[in-house]
Every structure is written in structure tokens, then in C-alpha cells.
């Protein structure tokens, strides 16, 4: 029930933010759409299934801020490599995935793909196989800085990152 209420509130907020036209008819249509989506979600049995503290933690904005910094840094690096393509040394590496929750593991793989220079090829519960564009991109991942940030996001105190 908690998840139904929170989903409804989020959908109403989204509708109000995106609509911008506040007339009685549109309110009714908006309420109808929200009700329809909530009903469909209930029928699909997806309400609360993907729920995880990771998704709603106050740590998430801080993690995003750090991730944007990383994305900017690696973008400059890959842009430099685009100008001098002879310097790339593509290779494939495995890194350990020290997280407990599925959402955290997927966040790790997605964050890794989001930073140019590393693309997640394959994710198993224990390891992440990554295609790295050059040594620097691979080293960024091998240090485990990103894995530790996500472990912090997940809320666990310590992980044995490599």
C-alpha cells in the first residue's frame, strides 16, 4: 500500500510539472491517467518489486554529482583520444562487483558505461566484464573508486574493493 501511495504521489507531481495547463478538464484527464498507470502497474505486479533504499536515499544526489564530475573528466580524455586515435589501446578487463543488491550492481554497470572510455560488456553477480578504450580508462575502474562510491550509496560500511 505504501508503494501505491508513493507511486501515485510521484505520478501526480510529474503530471503537474509537465502539464503546465491547469484547467478543470485537464485535471480530470490527469487524474484519470494517473489512476490508469497505477492500475496497470498493479496488474503488472511491478509496484514495490524494484523498490530499494538505494533508489530513494539522500546519498543519490551526492553520488550523481560525483558521477557527473567523472563523466566530464573521462569525456575530455576520450575527446583527446578521438583527435589522436593511434593512442588507443583497447582491451577487456574483469573487475569484481562487491555489492549486495541487484540495483547496486546494475548501477555500477550503468555508471561504468555512462563514463566514456569504459563499456560494460557482461555483468554477473560477482564480476563485471568491461571493454576499456585505453589504460587510463581501465585504471580508473581498477582502482575501485566507483565500486566504493556505489557501496557507500548502497549503505554498506566497508567493501573489499580491489
Amino acid at each position, binding site marked *: 500500500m505504501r508503494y501505491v501511495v508513493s507511486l501515485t504521489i510521484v505520478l501526480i507531481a510529474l503530471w503537474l510539472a509537465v502539464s503546465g495547463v491547469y484547467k478543470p478538464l485537464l485535471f480530470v484527464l490527469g487524474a484519470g491517467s494517473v489512476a490508469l498507470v497505477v492500475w496497470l502497474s498493479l496488474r503488472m505486479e511491478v509496484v514495490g518489486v524494484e523498490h530499494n533504499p538505494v533508489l530513494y536515499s539522500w546519498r543519490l544526489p551526492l553520488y550523481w554529482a560525483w558521477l557527473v564530475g567523472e563523466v566530464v573528466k573521462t569525456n575530455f580524455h576520450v575527446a583527446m583520444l578521438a583527435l589522436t586515435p593511434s593512442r588507443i589501446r583497447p582491451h577487456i*578487463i574483469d573487475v569484481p562487483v562487491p555489492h549486495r543488491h541487484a540495483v547496486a550492481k546494475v548501477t555500477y554497470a550503468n555508471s561504468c558505461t555512462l563514463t566514456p572510455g569504459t563499456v560494460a560488456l557482461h555483468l554477473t553477480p560477482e564480476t563485471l566484464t568491461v571493454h576499456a578504450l585505453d589504460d587510463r580508462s581501465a585504471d580508473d575502474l581498477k582502482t575501485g573508486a566507483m565500486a566504493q562510491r556505489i557501496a557507500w550509496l548502497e549503505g554498506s560500511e566497508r567493501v573489499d574493493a580491489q
Partner: protein
Amino acid sequence: MAETVINVLSAIFLLAGGAFGILGGLGLLRFPDFYSRLHAAGVTETLCAVLIVLGLVLQSGFSLLTIKLLLILLFLLFTAPTATHALARAAMVDEVEPEVIAKQSSENRPAPGEPSSNI
């Protein structure tokens, strides 16, 4: 005065975004194989998109339009890596061999013919 500053900032963001778009396209053309080209595409779908949306946010002022632009950015940043990963995995399943310097792992790679999402 404030308007001029905002316009100049916005122009800088938009131009920088465009420049990264061009660099990404250049990488797409110049990198040797499929997998390294994914990294070049990563430049256009991250920093290029972020800079262009920020430039547009400055143009739109603070309004509902800002929220819409930021939502576009949010969805883009969630879907782009997913699409990249799906492409990479589809290529591996189809046995597109990456040109690599050193191969450290082979046992974790999806076998040919394996469905592209099985976790």
C-alpha cells in the same frame, strides 16, 4: 546586464556541447572497431547532451520548461548506457571480435547464440 551574462553563458554551453558532438563524431569515424566506436558515441550522448540541455535551460529561464528539459536529460542519461550495453552485448553474441591489446578474460563472455539478456 544579467541577461547578457546569461546569454553569453548559454552560448558557451551550446557551443561546447556542439564541439563535443563533433569530437564524438570524429572518434566514431576514426576509431578502428565496433567496440571502440561505442566509446566515441558515449561522448556525444553524455557531455554533449548535458552541455546542450544546460545551455537551453539558461535560455528558457526558470519555468516549467526547465523541468521538462531536465527530465529529458535524466531519461537520456538513464537510457543511453542501457542502449550502449545492449549494442555491445548484441555484438558479442553475434561474435564480433573486439580488436584488443590484451585479453584478460574469456570465460565470462556470453557464448555465441546466447540471448542478449539472460540475467
